[in-house]
């Protein structure tokens, strides 16, 4: 008997017990739907983290003081040395793979305007600081080179700080605020960036010339970090090599000595967080896969019932010339149909659920075609695996015993 005929028989057998077939499929439907939804959510959150990280700056390469850390543990015994503005100059002169470099100085403190005050962080940078960090000016202007040289008491204000100090009515540009009691003039308002994936408000900040933050506010001579932009994502590795060399020269480090600074790149950050999110996705997927397994056991159970119920039918089929193989295939196709039809419903449900969750969380939820294809393969496999024993039981029946079965 050929596959088409066997499929017809299997389908009509299922149609005879529609509700039972549906209940049996339910296990598979829920299993497949949750696998697809979980993978989509995992993938969506990963993409969202990647977007967040890339919005932190353009191909950012950061230099920070301190020797290389691994899992929070200092490696080796190399001393760390504070970063200084001449390191920035050294990098600017020696590294062709970067387009921009800026020092970063930051300090936390209370900011006051009128009767309102608000705790925030004041970041200091060079004139290209906003480009490196991918921040736009919404109103007003960026500070100038002269203002950097003069350590002018000017700043750009983040939306959160502006809202808390001035409310929504007053235009913050042109106002004077006091940060740690030092009056600073607001010359621009920054474009909103919202919260990042880690729940940090990226609009809760002030940005001004690094000289201002360094000398007038913190009264320090070093800088906290050096930010630079590689010419492209691929050039990041090259940039790291160049910056390392420039930094070692600037710090006069001997050969064989360990770096007394550390370099972090955006690409590195992306891969770290991607791998965390991959682990989560795998975990969620594995938990959902268990429900798929339970669904498969449900199919096996109902196939056993079906074989027992239809023992006389099996006997009749054998008496009219059905071979063991024909009977085996008939029941196998029936169980594969159960699981594959369940799988199709599950895929539909999973896609719908994913997009609903996507709308609720605002994540770029992406249903992976691989997940859909995999579900299909897995469902077929489940049908064959869990249908095999009941089908074989049917195929191995003795014709006369099957015919006489009551």
């Amino acid at each position, binding site marked *: *008997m*050929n596959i088409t005929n066997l499929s017809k028989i299997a389908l009509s057998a299922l149609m005879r017990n529609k509700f039972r077939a549906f209940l049996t499929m339910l296990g598979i439907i829920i299993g497949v739907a949750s696998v697809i939804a979980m993978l989509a959510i995992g993938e969506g959150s990963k993409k969202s983290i990647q977007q967040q990280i890339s919005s932190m700056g353009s191909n950012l390469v950061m230099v920070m003081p301190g020797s290389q850390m691994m899992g929070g543990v200092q490696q080796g015994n190399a001393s760390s040395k504070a970063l200084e503005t001449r390191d920035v100059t050294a990098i600017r002169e020696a590294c062709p793979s970067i387009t921009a470099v800026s020092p970063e100085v930051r300090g936390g403190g209370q900011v006051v305007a009128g009767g309102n005050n608000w705790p925030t962080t004041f970041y200091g940078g060079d004139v290209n600081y906003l480009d490196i960090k991918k921040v736009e000016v919404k109103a007003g202007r960026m500070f100038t080179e002269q203002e950097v040289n003069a350590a002018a008491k000017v700043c750009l204000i983040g939306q959160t700080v502006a809202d808390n100090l001035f409310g929504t009515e007053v235009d913050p540009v042109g106002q004077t605020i006091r940060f740690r009691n030092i009056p600073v003039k607001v010359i621009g308002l920054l474009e909103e960036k919202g919260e990042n994936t880690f729940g940090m408000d990226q609009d809760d900040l002030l940005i001004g010339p690094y000289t201002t933050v360094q000398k007038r506010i913190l009264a320090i001579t070093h800088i906290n970090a050096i930010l630079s932009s590689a010419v492209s994502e691929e050039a990041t590795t090259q940039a790291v090599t160049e910056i390392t060399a420039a930094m070692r020269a600037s710090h006069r480090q001997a050969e064989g000595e360990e770096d007394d600074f550390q370099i972090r790149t955006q690409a590195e950050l992306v891969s770290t967080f991607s791998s965390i999110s991959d682990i989560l996705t795998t975990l969620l997927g594995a938990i959902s896969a268990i429900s798929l397994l339970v669904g498969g056991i449900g199919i096996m159970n109902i196939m056993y019932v079906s074989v027992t119920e239809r023992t006389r039918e099996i006997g009749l*089929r054998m*008496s*009219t*010339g059905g*071979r063991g193989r024909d009977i085996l295939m008939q029941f196998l196709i029936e169980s594969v149909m159960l699981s594959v039809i369940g799988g199709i419903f599950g895929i539909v449900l999973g896609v719908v659920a994913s997009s609903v969750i996507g709308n609720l969380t605002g994540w770029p939820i992406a249903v992976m075609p691989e997940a859909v294809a995999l579900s299909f393969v897995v469902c077929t496999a489940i049908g064959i695996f869990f249908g095999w024993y009941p089908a074989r039981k049917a195929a191995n029946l003795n014709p*006369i015993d099957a*015919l006489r079965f009551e």
Partner: protein
Amino acid sequence: MKKEIISIHQLRKDFHVGEVTVHALRSVDLSIREGDFVAIMGTSGSGKSTMLNILGCLDKPTSGSYLLDGTDVSNLSKNELARLRNLKLGFVFQSYNLLPRTSALENVELPLFYNNSVKPRERRERAMAALGAVGLADRVHHMPNQLSGGQQQRVAIARSLVNDPVVILADEATGNLDTRTSYEIMALFQDLNAKGKTIVFVTHEPEIAGFTTRNVHFRDGSIVKQHAVENPGSAREMLTTLPVETD
């Protein structure tokens, strides 16, 4: 002399139930030739069904030989036996054994499904022809539960015919039917036999056996008597003598 379709020699069949051994058949010799219409008779438990199941290759004898249409079936594999049942044998059961919720036509098509050389078109045509031959041309799309017992048995007969077997095996095919319907079914079998079909028919009703051409009597698993029927009655004629049912 006509060709020998069934040749049985020294056939035995024992059943073991717990400690007890039941000798259902003890040294049976039987020969059935092409065109025979044989009634197998005997009291309940005498081994008639056991005999028929072995003839139908549904069960294997404990010992003895069985040649079906020249083939020794004792050494055949399960698949070869299935093929033999498909091509050479047709069954009619007491309880019809139709597939539920499956139309008469599809029930009749069943044996052809297991015959790969028959294409879908031919399958349909042959099933229609078989249903026509049993007088059910107007019931092809009915489900078994929409047919009377007699009609269901006709569908079963059509199913046994459709693959053009060398022999039709019927076990108490009229056992569930009233007299009139039994005669109708017997008339059908007589027609088939008149066209040359070999039929083995198990019954314990002498009246029914009177429509066949040869009677074989079983007792305690052995053949005790067999004889040709002189002037077998015509079931169709008998039907006309039955009083017309009035309510």
